[in-house]
């Protein structure tokens, strides 16, 4: 970014304010000022904050973008596409696997030519899972047909978000645009930044939303969107698309020049730092380029002609400018935060090389290094080492090692991981104190469990030393359930707090075998595991006397995005258990609302303020949805009723080993995000059960039984008795929100009465 303050002061018309904000805050600020019609989104670190900031601003009445929390990124892309096709202005933000999950939709939107703006807050793609920044997600976007702008600083995030919409909607372009910036380094780092005081300046700059295209918006002009084609036609469609993409390069220059007049900040196609006479240079994307500039200054002081190139736009790829910038450069190192495995260099290395190929006089030696993956920091001396490699190549006249990784270490053989405990399995987990028998008469299981004191002899399945918050409710809940299971378990944890806090490499808090898969796919994955186990056993390739019990653990809203996978698994009848710990939100990513967040409850995307009072719709009844798949056993449980939960664990095991799938939901306390005192975790659950918000029941072979009835025990309390322990419901206790509590109570009562009817009638 070249700051043209001196040059432009006279022309800069619009008043700007200095503030101290992060990249995510500035993306949200630009979106709010533009006042998009729709944002369809799904939380994923580190982009989530964008939706959170927009929700906060909305609660304060600062914009009226309709924020739609999707059921997953695929859904969010669908919402955005549908809205864009209607001719609305549409916005989204995502990262990493969220981006990959929606990627199927991206070429659809580009190929049917509906503009929108999406912020890609770049992060490492799994696996192994890593929440921090690199460009492996961005590189999957290179072939989607979206224009891609790259923003190195929080200031650039703001500026490019404003420019992006104007480019997207330009009549010569009509393509969706990605603004990509570095996860954490740019998204979370606070900097001094400027923004336009009056949002009308921004709105005038982007102009009116174009209406003269073929949209769904006008019923008087019916249209067909998305007809299928043959190759003869698809060639022509894609040629149009290709032309539009190259046009976007030209339009970028125009829009950038116009924006410079308004803001005093100009973004050329390439950000060139001391490249006029550079002999050695680095080509770096986004924040790393900034660090390298400091090193250029040091090298220049030593008389070395060094420079840095960093593109502000990579789709279309600025080949002409790159050829010009590298005309006299003797050695260039392209550093990339992602690899294209097996291609002898990541994507941009090849694009730079191919740009140079067309200049027959070019003599630049190009080196390629993969660095800084998964959030590995890029320090000044790393940039120095890159320059050293380029200088070495310049002096030798060739690159000794054209392509390599940088920053990987062999490791010390003396420090390999050594066993800490002898494996606990098999008999260690057989207490012999739990009896489960099928009662032929009632067609129900009869379970006998000893006093829980006696089961303290049975080791826990999860070890101490995990990184969960103080007072976390997940582990008490899971272990009580596991206590009811005799023998080995094999678990699959979907992404969520239980997974994250128990497996921070190179540590594991799992005593028995555990596998992770992403947020939406645990049930399907464990289906494969259990079937493979059975098949290996059937063929005699493994010798085991007992079958393990297979348990899929999900939570933190995993039954939203993972619903399809769970229902598919239920319908296929695999012998496994799906256990959900429900903490009423996406707590692992910072407490965004999930579909199980109750009405009115505050989360980071269902804020409380002038214009809204927490979540606007009722909680999902996942238990009844799963019961409707007609699997043999469905239950609810809570740490506050331990005997009940241990018994259900025993029944779940019996059904999963002898009949088919089991689903269970545990309500658990999340003190951090429920804003409750750690110590009251169990009490809060007890009140949730006693208020009938979370009834304890089971559906055994289709027959519903309430296993604890607070009315019969004379323990029933109003929901406000539960609310009073939690900061997230504090606002609901105020007189002005009584109507919300009444509405919630009515819903709770409706579901409770329906449940009681089912309890009384086996045919319901």
């Amino acid at each position, binding site marked *: 970014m070249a700051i043209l303050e001196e040059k432009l002061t006279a022309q800069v018309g619009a008043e700007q304010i200095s503030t101290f904000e992060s990249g995510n805050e500035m993306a949200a600020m630009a979106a709010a000022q533009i006042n998009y019609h729709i944002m369809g989104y799904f939380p994923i670190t580190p982009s989530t904050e964008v939706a959170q900031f927009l929700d906060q601003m909305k609660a304060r009445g600062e914009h009226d973008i309709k924020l739609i929390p999707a059921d997953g990124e695929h859904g969010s892309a669908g919402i955005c596409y549908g809205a864009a096709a209607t001719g609305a202005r549409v916005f989204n933000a995502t990262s990493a696997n969220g981006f990959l999950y929606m990627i199927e939709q991206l070429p659809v939107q580009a190929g049917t030519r509906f503009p929108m703006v999406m912020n890609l807050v770049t992060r490492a793609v799994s696996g*192994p899972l890593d929440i921090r920044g690199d460009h492996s997600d961005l590189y999957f976007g290179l072939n989607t047909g979206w224009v891609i702008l790259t923003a190195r600083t929080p200031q650039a995030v703001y500026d490019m978000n404003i420019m992006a919409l104007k480019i997207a909607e330009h009549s010569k372009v009509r393509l969706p645009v990605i603004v990509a910036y570095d996860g954490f380094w740019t998204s979370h780092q606070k900097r001094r930044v400027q923004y336009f005081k009056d949002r009308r300046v921004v709105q005038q700059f982007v102009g009116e939303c174009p209406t003269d295209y073929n949209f769904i918006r006008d019923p008087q002009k019916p249209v067909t969107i998305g007809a299928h084609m043959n190759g003869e036609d698809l060639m022509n469609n894609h040629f149009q698309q290709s032309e539009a993409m190259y046009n976007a390069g030209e339009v970028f220059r125009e829009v950038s020049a116009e924006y410079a007049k308004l803001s005093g900040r100009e973004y050329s196609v390439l950000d060139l730092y001391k490249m006029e006479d550079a002999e050695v240079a680095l080509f770096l994307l986004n924040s790393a380029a900034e660090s390298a500039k400091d090193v250029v200054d040091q090298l220049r002081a030593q008389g070395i002609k060094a420079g840095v190139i960093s593109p502000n736009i990579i789709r279309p790829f600025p080949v002409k400018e790159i050829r010009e910038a590298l005309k006299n450069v003797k050695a260039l190192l392209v550093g990339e935060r992602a690899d294209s495995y097996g291609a002898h260099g990541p994507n941009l290395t090849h694009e730079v090389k191919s740009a140079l190929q067309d200049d027959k006089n070019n003599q630049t030696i190009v080196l390629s290094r993969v660095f800084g993956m998964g959030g590995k920091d890029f320090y000044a001396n790393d940039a120095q080492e890159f320059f050293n490699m380029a200088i070495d190549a310049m002096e030798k006249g060739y690159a000794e090692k054209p392509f390599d990784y940088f920053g990987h270490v062999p490791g010390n053989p003396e420090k390999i991981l050594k066993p800490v405990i002898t494996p606990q399995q098999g008999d260690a987990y057989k207490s012999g104190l739990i009896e489960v028998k099928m009662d032929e008469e009632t067609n129900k299981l009869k379970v006998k469990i000893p006093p829980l004191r006696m089961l303290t002899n049975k080791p826990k399945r999860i070890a101490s030393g995990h990184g969960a918050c103080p007072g976390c409710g997940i582990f008490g809940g899971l272990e009580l359930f596991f206590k009811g299971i005799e023998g080995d378990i094999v678990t699959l944890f979907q992404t969520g707090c239980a997974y994250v806090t128990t497996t921070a490499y190179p540590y594991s808090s799992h005593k028995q075998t555990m596998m992770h898969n992403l947020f939406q796919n645990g049930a399907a994955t464990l289906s494969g595991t259990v079937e493979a186990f059975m098949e290996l056993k059937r063929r005699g390739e493994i010798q085991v006397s007992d079958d393990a019990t297979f348990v899929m653990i999900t939570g933190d809203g995993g039954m939203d995005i993972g619903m399809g996978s769970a229902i598919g698994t239920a319908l296929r009848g695999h012998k496994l258990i799906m256990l959900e710990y429900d903490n009423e939100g996406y707590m692992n990513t910072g407490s965004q609302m999930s579909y199980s967040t109750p009405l009115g409850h505050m989360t980071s995307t269902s804020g409380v303020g002038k214009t809204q009072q927490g979540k606007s719709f009722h909680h999902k009844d996942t238990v009844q949805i799963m019961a409707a798949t007609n699997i043999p056993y469905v239950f609810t449980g809570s740490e506050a009723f331990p005997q009940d939960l241990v018994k259900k664990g025993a029944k779940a095991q019996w059904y999963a080993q002898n009949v088919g799938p089991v689903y269970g939901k545990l309500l658990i306390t999340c003190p951090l995000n429920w804003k409750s005192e750690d110590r009251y975790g169990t009490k809060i659950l007890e009140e949730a059960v006693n208020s009938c918000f979370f009834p304890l029941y089971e559906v055994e072979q289709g027959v519903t039984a309430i296993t604890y009835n607070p009315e019969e025990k004379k323990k029933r309390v109003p929901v406000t008795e539960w609310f009073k322990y939690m900061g997230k419901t504090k606002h609901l206790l105020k007189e002005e929100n009584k109507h919300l509590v009444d509405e919630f109570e009515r819903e709770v009562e409706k579901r409770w009465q329906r449940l009681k009817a089912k309890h009384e009638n086996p045919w319901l």
Partner: protein
Amino acid sequence: MSILPQKNELGFFEIRLESIGGLGANLAGKMLAEAGVLGLGLNGSNFSSYGSEKKGTPVKSFIRFCEPRVEIRDHSPIEQPHIVGVFHEALYKTINVVSGLNADGIVLVNSSRDFDDVKQDLKLEYGTLAIVDALTIAVEEKTKVNTAMLGALFRICDFLDPDAMRKVIRKTFEKKYPHFVEPNLRTFDRGYSEVEFKTYHVPEDAQGKAFTRPLPQLGYMTQELGGVITTQANSILKDLSGSRQGFLPKFERDKCIDCAACDNVCPDFCFVWEEGADKRGREQMFLKGIDYQYCKGCLKCVEACPTSALSDLREMIGYADANRVKQNFPYAEGGNL
């Protein structure tokens, strides 16, 4: 003339806060940075160390200040700070909190101990040590440690304007939580005035503390393929006592009825049981004690306990170590414990 007392070669005055998630170092860092950037017109940046770790695990917050016209390009973590703020003394066990500190740097520690004791634990040879008993202030005022630490940090960064911070505190709370205004102002002021300093002579040829970038334990020759871990349960090597914020459960064996209610609700599996015989000579389980190495001080067990065998205790240094009952995991021979 510059108001910044010192600058490194890139022109930055740098502060690093060492803390534990939940103590509010992130917010303190943000407020400190804002006071310099928005309040005094300096340029600056602020960020935290990020990971998947939750409340109760070590975190760092970084603040860079520079002259208004200096462009900030460096966004990597601060390795050679002028000031270090330590929010919790339990961090010493696992983290070199003064790593890279300038020879004449200042370390602020939240502690109730003597200068020389703290100096020894920090392995500090020279420079200035500042101590504030932020936890006691926070407990007494029913506020948070970070506000007291912020008060002390403002005293150290004497180029910042404490009145501006007082205004921010007032503005933050007065609308929604007016009853928090006065206690928080008092907390800030007490941090500001109660912080004490002791300077240890800095010799002419004094060197700053060396800093090292921690290397991963494993490399590409020693990682199992695909990141598989075969050493199950090795998280028991971790010490989580630093997650406690001043309190732990005290266990009195003679009042215990061995009902296991505590064990059912403990998120960290701290309760240690042993087999024994009951009065009639039958095999039975007895609660032996608490493994404080893993106790994060949530006190759920105290709520669950039907007798008074478990109770809240304000943690004193040494209590947990003296009263810890080690878990009876089947420790492996040759494990790197």
